[in-house]
């Protein structure tokens, strides 16, 4: 059996009275793409925050590459190889698009010159070359999403967390972005965890899936199996007689 790149054990997150995650277990197979499905407010973003270190769990552990990283800061985890995008985008508004990506590279001690060249290729990848020298604050919703992706990729992660990365991206561009992600996965062996409401995108990307509802894991399995699961169809996709 392939070793798990990431495993989350018994993670519970409570915000005051609200329990956003309850006893969540999750294993992410190395090199595979795992989708996290769930209705709004199920705890998907919170799970990402726990993995990336932005939220510390009330209880439970996060193990990455066999190491317990629960107590590590987000920046430390990035150095371990965990990268993420934000559902509600967070560009560096005052830096240009290119420099936004350079930050990700220099944070890992890439020399400036090299970082500039490399960043340009990522910007190109996500289709923002025309805006490369514009400050990121002027980007539209979809453009911001693309920038998020470029930046996360530039950290050269082992594990990439994509929170609704195609939400707001115009349809004609989605295939390119999917191709890009797939290529990254194949060429660099990146493991991906993705939150996405666009089922078409998911089918093109995910191997495994888990289904969260009200902070609890309801179903785990292969993408196809989970998508066909009864409760998923009912609660998440709203199929059937609802």
């Amino acid at each position, binding site marked *: 059996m392939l070793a798990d790149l990431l495993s989350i054990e018994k993670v519970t997150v409570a915000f005051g009275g609200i329990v956003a995650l309850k006893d969540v277990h999750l294993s992410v197979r190395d090199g595979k793409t795992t989708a996290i499905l769930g209705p709004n407010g199920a705890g998907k973003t919170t799970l990402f925050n726990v993995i990336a270190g932005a939220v510390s769990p009330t209880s439970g552990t996060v193990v990455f590459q066999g190491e317990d990283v629960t107590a590590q800061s987000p920046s430390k985890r990035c150095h371990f190889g965990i990268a993420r995008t934000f559902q509600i985008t967070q560009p*560096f508004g005052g830096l240009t698009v290119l420099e936004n990506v350079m930050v*990700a590279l220099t*944070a890992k001690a890439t020399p400036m010159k090299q970082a500039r060249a490399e960043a340009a290729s990522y910007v190109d990848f996500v289709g923002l070359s025309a805006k490369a020298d514009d400050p990121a604050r002027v980007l539209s919703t979809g453009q911001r999403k693309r920038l998020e992706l470029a930046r996360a990729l530039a950290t050269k992660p082992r594990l990439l967390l994509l929170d609704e990365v195609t939400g707001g991206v115009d349809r004609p561009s989605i295939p390119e972005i999917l191709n890009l992600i797939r290529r990254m996965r194949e060429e660099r062996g990146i493991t991906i965890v993705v939150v996405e409401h666009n089922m078409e995108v998911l089918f093109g990307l995910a191997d495994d899936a888990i289904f969260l509802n009200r902070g609890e894991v309801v179903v785990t399995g292969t993408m196809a199996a989970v998508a066909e699961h009864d409760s998923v169809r009912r609660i998440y996709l709203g199929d059937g007689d609802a």
Partner: protein
Amino acid sequence: MLEVFGKRPFLLLLFYAALLVAVPFLPLNDYVLHILTLFLIFAVFATGWNLTLGILGLKTLGHHAFFAMGAYVSALVAFYGGVSPWITIWIGALAAALSGILIGLPILRIRSMPHVAIVTLAFAEIVRLVFSNLKEITRGELGFWGIPPFDPIQLGDVTLRFGIGNAIGSYALAAAFFLAVHLALLIFMTSRPGLTFLAIKDSETAAESLGIHLVTWKLLAFAVSAAVVGLSGAIYAHYVLILTPTSVAGPEMLITLLAMIIVGGVGRFFGPIYGALLLTVMSEALREVGDYRMLLYGALIVVFVFIAPQGIAGLAWRRRRSRKVAATDPAT
């Protein structure tokens, strides 16, 4: 980063270096050199402060405390310890950096502009009061005098003397420090640290997710900024040779420097230099109407915030930029 540094920052600095070297060859009297010396010292101060205020985006309002720290520590060590100012200024800068870290630690964890502004302001008030209350050592508001000037240096058959009254030597020294500090900072800021500071300024969450350790970097910025300001304070001390807590750490120092940075351009690398030049020269020119000086500073800050929030440096930049945009835009 283009917005911060402009197109060719090193070339620009070289140009300023040439100007500074040319000055002593002009027929200027001591008084003018004295004003220029003050300008150079305050320009270093303003640039140092701009590092946190403009570039890291931490709205600190207490950097005059670091100025006072550098000035007093260097002066006290030189006076009581009999150590040469050539050495004590570094001790002063170090003391400022350490106090920067001390006050930086509690506020850096808080991502809130008012906290930073108010806590640093309160810190400056503490520093002022402590220097003023430790009368046995500093003589309080009576002023700490007897500060030794920099030891003279022999250049061939000319002896360069320093301290107030030795205009040429003092000017040369201030200019040398001005150029050295700006060059060092420019090298520092146009590479990784600069990029990182600017990223932190815009989104701490995102910066952190990309592997930037916030506290380390912010403390670094704070320490560097405090050290630069402290150094300028130390040079100031060994130039004017008397310090009072109110004049180095009082509110007028805050206002004056803030005005310099805002008029010059917050967050622009070269901005504070222009601001320092304009305001130092102006405040001397306005001696006649002394009563209106503070009135004018206040008005100047307001006016610049309104019509040119990016300051003098930003005005020049915007003009160039809008020409460029106008030329390329219809194509998009």
